[in-house]
């Protein structure tokens, strides 16, 4: 099952501005890896990673790893519905998201 399109459409209007944040997430086996960087290439030194399910319910949060990649175990059941990964940096409005679709998760788990 795909993540609802409404969820995608709602988040797709997040504006991208100078020094914008760029977020990418991928799955390796049972681990989710979240990469965050500014458009300048610099890595954020602090911030929060929020993990939401397909119905936009917050499942868990993580402190961002200043090395640029934040890793945590794949949420059980995520393969069926997908996950929304949001990253917010500080209080100045830098935020972005990555939609981990069921296909993304399956690819990362199966190597397919």
């Amino acid at each position: 099952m795909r993540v609802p399109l409404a969820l995608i459409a709602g988040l797709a209007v997040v504006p991208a501005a100078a020094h914008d944040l760029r977020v990418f997430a991928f799955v390796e086996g049972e681990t989710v890896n979240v990469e965050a960087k500014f458009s300048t290439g610099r890595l954020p030194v602090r911030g929060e990673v929020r993990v939401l399910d397909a119905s936009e319910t917050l499942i868990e949060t993580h402190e961002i790893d200043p090395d640029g990649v934040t890793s945590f175990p794949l949420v059980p059941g995520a393969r069926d519905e997908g996950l929304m990964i949001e990253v917010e940096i500080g209080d100045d409005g830098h935020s972005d998201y990555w939609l981990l679709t069921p296909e993304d998760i399956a690819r990362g788990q199966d190597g397919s």
Partner: protein
Amino acid sequence: MKHLASTALSLALTAAPAAAHYGMIIPSDNMVSQEDGRSVDLTLSFSHPFEGRGMVLEMPAAFTVTHEGEETSLLDQLSETEVMGEPGYEMTYDLARPGTYVFAMTPEPYWEPEEDAFITHYTKTYVSTYGDDEGWDTELGLKTEIVPLSKPFALWSGNVFQGIVKLDGEAVPNAEVEVEYYDEEGDAEAPSDLMITQTIKADENGVFTYAVPTSGWWGFAALNTAEEPMRHEGEDKAHELGAVIWVHFEEWDD
């Protein structure tokens, strides 16, 4: 009689080819967002892009993708197709990560009897994925190459495109660059053959600048002649080396 003769002459001249040959790599999208999917379709051809006339593209000598400094051959993933009525190639490429993917084709030298010369167009295009433009100025190190000074995507119609013409890694002063629009819809009209393929020259540092008048795909071909001729039927023939880059310009919509 004079009128009929001049009409016949006019018709004969109308049919004469006026535009330039272009190696072409046209992706289905050159700024792939995460909402667009996780892959891009690529179409390879050898064509007259403004006039929509195809030519035969043999299986290229090389077709690669470069991302984050890593080059991968895609030659064995090409399948035959038809482009503008002539043989070409196509494939779908999975885009695993953010950044800029550079697709590059080195065709086999093409014997052009009308020009009494061989033609090899080193052709490339840049695809940005998932909102990340890192690597947009990648230089591949091709035999001849246009290295972009303008980001080769995320351009409005009316923007200028700038690049450096290089041959064997060195800038080519005063290089000649042909520019042509890919008329996908077949509805563009040129008041003169001189405006089907426009020709500009680079400056003393090999830098050229061109402002496009409309959105769509534009091909830039910097042409040089190889020092070494090629043999054809026992004779030395000139070998044209083209550095071709395909750039898409977006329509300004206010």
